């Protein structure tokens, strides 16, 4: 990679199992993970814009990578310039992000996610969107359309114009139902996994469940895809929506609730229980992608070891090593990585944006 954040020029040859980036804080470890994620998805998992991604005194950044799978080698190249992100696959430009999808599946696991159980709903929605996106090729388009319809509808509510509101409400309801349907399908896909992995990690027989919350639309049959009722619910809140100039219900306001033995984990769970739940969730997500695509995703672990106790840490690392997947881990201290053996790992030390192998 070249001129990416604080990394001037770096070249690494990772191994096919564990790859560890270690070094002090602010040396560029997470930047490396971010570059890998960006190469696979064209998105930054830190929601950064090009301005932040391109080194401050350069006009463009480049990331390229070689992807090898079942003996097939593909070259991916990404150029960041101005606001543009151009990707070339085997030397040929791609026009749509969706053309690219399926080339590389990535799962990120960062400390933000460990704390998402207690955090604000938007952190959980971001997690959910990212997870659904990596297992459902059509989700990005649906999400994009929904966001656009929402913007139009909000503009309409602010303008006070009535003529086309019914039309946009119907379009909105259709898009909302579709989006929720795909989110629910994903949650159903990981349901059993979450339960099984939680029991494995915690050593308890607790019942865990993820519950999708769609405020004010629960009775309206949002989950069952009843567009007519969703439209009715929207019409009922029309007065308030006009007054506040925005759409008050829909998937952009939904949430997922983590339940332990039927109780909200957010309120009653210990920090350990909350973390075990998120770990189980990530494991289930990985297993789900593996089932769907027949190949495990690449996992990016951003310094979560320091946030987990020894038992959970070891358990998670064991899960990863039995799943034979490529993992990139950042840590400030190699001693945090509780692998049975560090022998098969590749280790890269980072200092001031440089890689010292």
């Amino acid at each position, binding site marked *: 990679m070249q001129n990416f954040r604080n990394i001037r020029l770096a070249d690494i040859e990772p191994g096919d199992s564990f790859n560890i980036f270690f070094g002090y804080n602010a040396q560029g470890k997470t930047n490396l993970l971010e570059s890998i994620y960006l190469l696979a998805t064209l998105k930054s998992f830190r929601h950064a814009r090009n301005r932040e991604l391109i080194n401050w005194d350069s006009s463009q950044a480049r990331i390229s990578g070689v992807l090898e799978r079942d003996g097939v080698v593909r070259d991916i190249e990404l150029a960041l310039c101005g606001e543009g992100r151009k990707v070339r696959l085997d030397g040929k430009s791609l026009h749509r992000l969706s053309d690219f999808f399926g080339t590389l599946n990535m799962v990120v696991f960062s400390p933000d996610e460990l704390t998402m159980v207690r955090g604000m709903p938007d952190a959980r929605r971001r997690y959910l969107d990212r997870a659904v996106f990596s297992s459902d090729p059509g989700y990005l388009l649906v999400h994009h359309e929904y966001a656009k319809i929402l913007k139009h509808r909000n*503009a309409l509510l602010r303008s006070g114009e009535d003529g086309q509101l019914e039309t946009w409400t119907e379009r909105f309801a259709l898009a909302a139902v579709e989006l929720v349907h795909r989110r629910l399908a994903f949650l159903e896909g990981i349901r059993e996994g979450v339960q099984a992995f939680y029991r494995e990690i915690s050593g308890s027989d607790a019942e865990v469940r993820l519950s999708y919350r769609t405020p004010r639309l629960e009775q309206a049959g949002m989950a069952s895809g009843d567009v007519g009722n969703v439209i009715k619910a929207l019409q009922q809140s029309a007065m308030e929506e006009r007054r506040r100039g925005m759409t008050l219900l829909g998937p952009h306001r939904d949430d997922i609730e983590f339940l332990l033995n039927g109780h909200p984990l957010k309120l009653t769970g210990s920090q350990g229980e909350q973390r075990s739940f998120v770990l189980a969730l990530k494991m289930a997500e990985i297993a789900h992608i593996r089932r769907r695509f027949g190949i495990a995703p690449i996992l990016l672990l951003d310094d979560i070891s320091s946030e987990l106790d020894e038992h959970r840490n070891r358990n998670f690392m064991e899960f990863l090593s039995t799943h034979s997947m490529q993992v990139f881990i950042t840590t400030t201290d190699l001693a945090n990585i509780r692998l049975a053996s560090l022998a098969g790992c590749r280790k890269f030390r980072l200092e001031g944006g440089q890689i010292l192998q």
Partner: protein
Amino acid sequence: MLHFSSSFGRLLLELKKLPGVGEKTALRLAFHLLKSPANVRALAESLLEVVSRVRFCSTCFCITEDDPCAICTGDRDDATLCVVEEPQDVLAIERSQAFRGRYHVLQGALSPLSGITPSQLRIDELMRRLEQGTVGEVVIATNFSVEGEATALYLTRLIKPLGIRVTRLAHGIPIGSDLEYVDAATVQRAVLGRSEL
């Protein structure tokens, strides 16, 4: 070196107003024009001629030199009317030779974000045409964008109560393309919208 208040500078500024033309392209075009004075005269004349002669048809709102336009006065099927967003969409459908009815150009699509309301489109004019009772089917050929789809829905709500059949262009896998090269989202929609043979 020429100053930007010079005629050359003004040409650059005018060229840059065109869609898809930036600084470099404007410079290239301007230097190219300087080299061929004869072509410049022809270009200038045709530009002036276009603005003085081309206008919108008062029936279908497509571009034309004679009002009403050739399609509106031609021997076409009066019972089907195709509604599109822009005049260039009429050209696209005409090229296909698949449609023998008449057209109606909305001159845009609904877009609250850009402040486009139904009254800014040629919808009232469309409804007046439909009230004459000759049209039995309206083919909605607005774009498959968020705005185009909303416009299609808006029109459907207006037209259906008149007892007129409303249809929408089909969409999916492009003809002649290999399925393997079509993006996943398009294939997904095509599978969901599959039809009986």
